């Protein structure tokens, strides 16, 4: 606009030299005024830009809130209520497959914000379909320690393994791998503290340790001073060219369960375990997208290997075995491929190895079928999901689950996952 005004004025100057000094003086003044106006306009623009970056009002400090809605429609050939993994202790509840028929999944409410320049806080509350509220995570974490250190405290998803710290709504399958069910009761979210350190290198090297209460499987929430569980983990990760990113890790968990009940309806007596439990996890994840742009197609390969050693007392009908020991292992490997925008397919293979279990009092699988049947559970899972946007996902999942000795559970389920509210950031 100003440019055309300038042109007009230049024209005026050229055409009307005859009007002489007065006109020129007027033009000069006009020029000055325009320059002043331009300056003021620039200033106003700057102020406007500043103002636009500053939200007003008390509620501007509201934390980021998001809500996850989930639900399933499931069919299974065996009753999910009698679910067990032969040879491994946790049964029912959290580790079981989805309820038959139509059912609501867990609705997750996530509230997070920086507390001050030094701390950040986050709550993940899970509203269960049984009308209870569970605290999945409620933790603070430091922002200002420096030198690559971070301390987390409260209840949080442990950083052991790979999938453990991924929220269930971001999983690639509706349920957890068998190894997670058998060795961690689904996942580990203990009450405790975590110290983490990132090395000052171009390759990601991350070391950490956690001290916890040991409130859930494999621990038993001992009523004692001090800690009931500790973990240590190391992660390394980087890029291979622009297209591939990877991370691998090794984790260790140690806990001392006391009278950990083994719930087995087929057993000829009550059973519980007291002793020491050591778990090792080796994990890797590899993500590939052409040129690092996952919009059209991308591929994800993920696997974890678990190895557990437990030793101590097996109490069977109030008789202590004295020297129970078990060495068991398990793994899963899964691949998920996005073959076109919005559509992905995935396959997962699960396998557990019963390993060696010696109970010290001559019990056989007839006495304690859940614990002592020498059987290697397996499962094959296929899924296809459609994500109309990054906030919604609908998934079809088929599984052939051989967790139970001599039986195959064929499962079909349809799942929806919706996320509302603040745009969450997902971990790699």
């Amino acid at each position, binding site marked *: 606009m100003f440019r055309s005004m300038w042109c007009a004025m230049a024209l005026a100057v050229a055409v009307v030299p005859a009007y002489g000094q007065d006109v020129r003086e007027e033009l000069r003044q006009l020029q000055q005024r325009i320059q002043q106006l331009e300056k003021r306009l620039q200033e106003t*623009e700057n102020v*406007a*830009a*500043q103002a*636009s*970056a500053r939200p007003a009002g008390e509620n501007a400090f509201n934390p980021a809130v998001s809500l996850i809605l989930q639900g399933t429609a499931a069919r299974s050939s065996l009753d999910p209520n009698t679910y067990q993994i032969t040879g491994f202790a946790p049964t029912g509840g959290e580790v079981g497959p989805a309820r038959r028929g139509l059912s609501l999944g867990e609705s997750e409410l996530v509230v997070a914000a*920086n507390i001050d*320049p030094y701390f*950040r806080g986050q709550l993940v509350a899970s509203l269960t379909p049984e009308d209870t509220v569970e605290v999945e995570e409620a933790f603070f*974490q430091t*922002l*200002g*320690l*420096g*030198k*690559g*250190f*971070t301390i987390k405290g409260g209840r949080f998803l442990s950083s052991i393994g790979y999938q453990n710290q991924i929220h269930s709504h971001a999983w690639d399958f509706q349920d957890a791998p068998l190894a997670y069910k058998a060795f961690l009761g689904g996942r580990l979210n203990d009450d405790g503290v975590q110290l*983490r*350190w*990132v*090395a*000052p*290198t*171009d*390759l*990601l*090297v*991350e070391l950490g340790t956690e001290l916890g209460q040991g409130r859930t499987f494999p621990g038993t929430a001992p009523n004692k001073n001090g800690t009931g569980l500790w973990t240590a983990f190391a*992660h*390394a*990760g*980087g*890029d291979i060219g*622009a297209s591939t*990113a*990877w*991370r691998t890790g090794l984790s260790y968990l140690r806990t001392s369960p006391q009278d950990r009940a083994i719930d087995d309806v087929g057993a000829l007596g009550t059973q519980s375990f007291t002793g020491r439990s050591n778990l090792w996890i080796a994990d890797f994840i590899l*993500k590939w997208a052409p*040129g*690092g*742009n*996952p*919009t*059209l197609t991308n591929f994800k390969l993920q696997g974890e290997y678990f190895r557990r050693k437990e030793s101590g007392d097996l109490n069977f009908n109030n008789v202590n075995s004295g020297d129970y020991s078990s060495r068991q292992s398990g793994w899963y490997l899964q691949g998920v491929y996005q073959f076109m*925008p*919005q559509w992905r397919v995935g396959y997962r293979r699960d396998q557990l190895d019963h390993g060696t279990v010696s109970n010290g009092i001559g019990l056989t699988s007839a006495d304690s079928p859940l614990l002592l049947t020498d059987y290697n559970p397996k499962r094959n899972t296929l899924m296809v999901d459609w994500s*109309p*946007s*990054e*906030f919604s996902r609908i998934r079809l999942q088929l599984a052939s689950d051989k967790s139970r000795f001599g039986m195959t559970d064929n499962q079909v389920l349809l799942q929806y996952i919706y996320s*509302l509210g603040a*745009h*969450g*950031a*997902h*971990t*790699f």
Partner: protein
Amino acid sequence: MRILLTALSFAISSPAFAALNILACEPEWGALAKEIGGDRVTVYTATTALQDPHRIEARPSLIARARSADLMVCTGAELEIGWAPLLQTQSGNPKIQAGQPGYFEAASVVALLEKPTRLDRSMGDIHAAGNPHIHLDPRNIARVSAALSERMATLDRADTRYYEDREKSFLQRWSDATARWEKQGAPLKGMPLVVYHKNFTYLINWLGMREVGALEPKPGLPPSTAHLGELLDQLKREPAKAVVRAAYNEPRAAEWLAERAKIPAVMVPFTVGGTDNAKDLFTLYDDTLTRLLAVAK
């Protein structure tokens, strides 16, 4: 002992003649940081021009780079909301936290366009603060460069003069180039365009072009056949000159529409590195204008 300590301190400090370690979220800010910082900075750019800045993951390599960054230069306005916050919380680096001088958001010094009047996800993946793709208006680059050089001087007091001088020289060359581009781009005035994503808004606004449609039915959703059909009908009534997409947008939808509407499909670099010619900020604009002028006629 002293010799050992001297040797050790030399070993620690010698590879880093650079005073500032910068992590740039997008290539345009990496290029700008290099223009201003010269040899006093080392710049690592988190994304390439062939990646969609909305869809980046907080990869292990990025967390490692964030760990030792003195300054993180991002667009802001929620463009990096899916990944940058994780780099901040997982790197254990207090310097680059939001609110610290080591975290710089380019959008905070620019007046944003297309600020939504209604915030609702039924409108697609919209950004509350406005359209974040600010770097294709050279006047915005000038504003950001002033603020960024100030920030770099705050973090590295010893080199204040160096940054000021380089910024001044850059700004001089930049305003000359801007004048040249405006002259060159005059034939583009009023040119109607179909875009892929609403990431050319500032370019269109600066050169006075017109956006008559977008291949994405809503921001962030992939083009659907139904929407492309509607767009084709619309183009029959009110034709456009070209379908424009960024180097990182997939070509098929743009080519499909262009072929049927009998108009050219144009790929522009969008940011530094998007084409072989777009090597820095100047050549980014040169190449963008060349490609647009080729279809303006």
